[in-house]
């Protein structure tokens, strides 16, 4: 009986600390810096907003690649 309880304790602690770890990762990324925006995102974000976020990421990646190439060109000159 007590052996099972010890096991439950270990599993419970691993699960809860894993969740805490995810929270800490989010907080370090700045996801909770703006409390009001975060709460609104939770309540109102739609699939359309998620699609926009993906498009935005692609645009950022493209712009950064383009800029890096331009900077390389300038350096080689």
């Amino acid at each position: 009986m007590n052996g099972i309880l010890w096991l439950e304790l270990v599993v419970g602690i691993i699960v809860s600390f894993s969740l805490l770890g995810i929270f800490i990762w989010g907080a370090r990324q700045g996801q909770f810096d703006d409390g009001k925006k975060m709460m609104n995102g939770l309540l109102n974000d739609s699939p359309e907003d998620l699609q926009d976020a993906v498009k935005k990421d692609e645009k950022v990646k493209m712009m950064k690649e383009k800029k890096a190439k331009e900077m390389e060109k300038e350096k080689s000159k």
Partner: protein
Amino acid sequence: MSIVKCSHCHLEFDEKVMIKEPQSPELNFCCNGCQGVYHLLKDDGLDSFYDKMGKNTISPPTAIGQDSSNFDMESFAQRYIKTTPDGFSKIDLIMEGIHCAACIWLNEKVLDETPGILEVSINFTNNKAKIIWDDETIQLSQIIDKIRSIGYNAYPYDRTQSDKKATANKKDYFMRMSIAIFASMNIMMIGVAKYTGFFMGMDEEMLRIVHMAEFIFATPVLFYSGWVFFRGAYYGLKNKMINMDFLVSAGATLTYIYSLYVLFGGAGHSYFDSVAMIITFVLVGKYLEVIGKKSAVDTMDKIKSQIPLEATIIVDGGKKVVPLDKIQVDDIIEVKNGEKASVDGVVISGDSSFDESSISGESLPVSKKIGDKIYSGTINTSAVIRYKAVKDYANSTLNNIVELLEDSLNSKPKIEDTTNELSKYFSVIILSIAFGTFMGWYFYDGDFENALIIAISVIVIACPCALALATPIASLIGVSWLAREGILFKEAKFIETFSKMDTIVLDKTGTVTTGNLSVISGKTSELSSENLNLLFSLADSSTHPVSIAVKKHLEQNHKYLKHIELESIEQLPSSGIKAKYNDVAIFGGRVNDDTKHKSTIYQFCINNTLLTTFELEDTIRDDAKQTISYLQNEGIEVIMCSGDNKHIVSKVAQEVGIKQYKSKMSPIDKANFINELRKDKKTVVMAGDGINDSLALSRADVSIAMGNGADIAIAVSDIVILNDKLNGIKKSIYISKRTFKFIKQNLAISLVYNAVTIPIAMAGYVIPLVAALSMSLSSLLVVGNSTRIKNNKLGK
């Protein structure tokens, strides 16, 4: 008269003044700006903005069409634009006009879809934005134009070291507090099992598992979340001071050590739950303080973003744009309509009127002619003028106010917090008693372990849970009650100071009066219906507060007014407005040679013949007299301050029953006056609404802003009366006094509890079960007592 909502801003207006678009459903707009933005969003497929906006309202757009070329100037770029390691440009902006989440969504969406913009991030809490863009694809002025085209505006701000430090500090505390709350919640759940075990029975091994789980959760709380207290205690000791941090860390560490002893060897009851609770409770309080400091920094950034960036000076007959710090005394400065004066000076050519509300609080523009003084920060509201600088920027009025405000916000008067003071002495006494108990038992029976356990049990039973709860629980109930009455206390600690105040300083315009002009006399019965319509159309052509008041008066007294298209409408600086209709000259305003009227007047002339004269006055609030008489009956000294002249101030004071008043006060005079009162050991509350009151508000022990006041006044205030009613002050006093009475009762309960239980613990008679029960009982007593606060007429 029917009221309709503007289809863009959702503000409500009289149907007659709306711009209508007959379609299904019918569209109504309050101004051309709203109409333009509505169609722009519709055409770009962004009309889901209105679904996201819900019931919120926004301000009608005002910045559309403003010149944004100064954002591309070299001096601007050097000061505000930074380059990222990837080679992009970056700027920090403060957004104007953000009201709800939909506003953030719209701005981010529009800018994200603009080619050349890499990243846009707008903070909803403080309205600060970060924009990263590629300046080879798009110019900053185009980005600003884009923001303005959808009805918002943006100002640059210098991201200071203090802002970076405050942001990092807030993030650090947020992380520590989150971990503390997470662990405490888990410990509370485990605690349910533990305390149930006391009654139902629990074997040794199972108790050890429960203690082990508590130990795992309490350890990060003490050493990570509680690290700030160890650090504070270390610096306190370095300066030879026993501070609150020392007592929190010492109490928590001793309890932790005792609990470790129980877990790994000894028998008995562990107190890991107390360790986590003490740290979490105090840390939440500290986090609120950190947020307060961060919002002070945000307020200063908002104020600084309003300072003009450059000024146009006249050199050798030509114009030159120079940064503010390059302006020298005797330089000739040109100020166009809508621009802000950058430094103090004297008019040398031109005739105009200036909005001096940031200095005097008065909403009426003041006329300026040759020889008159110009104050920095005031806005030119009509024609171009030139003036000679008499001070450089560093010594000008605006910079003085900004610097003083910065000092005040950084050193807000320290409020005597009874509970903090009490718990400081309380903890010193408890630590001394515990040490005495240890020594006594050790010398009495020579058993070190027994002496240590009894000493620690003294500390544990005296765990200031009830003391820690005494103030927050009562304050929470008081503050939520106040919020329901439309009064927002930014921090609960102001309840105590507010209930102890003996002097209140009231600003006149916008606080005792409504700040809006209304017609008190003027005949329209002798006017023909055509002349009446001409007068209405003329008053409707101006946004000057006097014209607005006359228009409102006409609308209230006449049913069938018709709008007539006037020609050649021209604003006359400092006198009024003129126009033509079928070769008839119409004039509305003040005829120059009229000196018999002391108050504000509006005269209506046709072909130079005076037809009627309106007399206007600022309206006193309905509840002003009643509130002031209540304050006086409570023994509070009421003083009224104003930037207005003595004649007007004394008249208002007499009408509302105020015996003491001060007139012609500048923002700095008001702040100095508050300082003098505080030097006389008075507890001063200041109530105001304007930018000109901000400095005085920041100097008072507690400051109140009216809900319709300027953003800056609201930002620096401790209390905001959201419904803009003066009797909010009366309600605040009543509720604060009642709440403070209960705080004192709670403190008494917790002290009596300790006075009874500590001697028992010192005698070594406390078993863990009794300690746990008595701790809970004392907390319950305090919570139960606090719920009685609302048991009265006003509360029900």
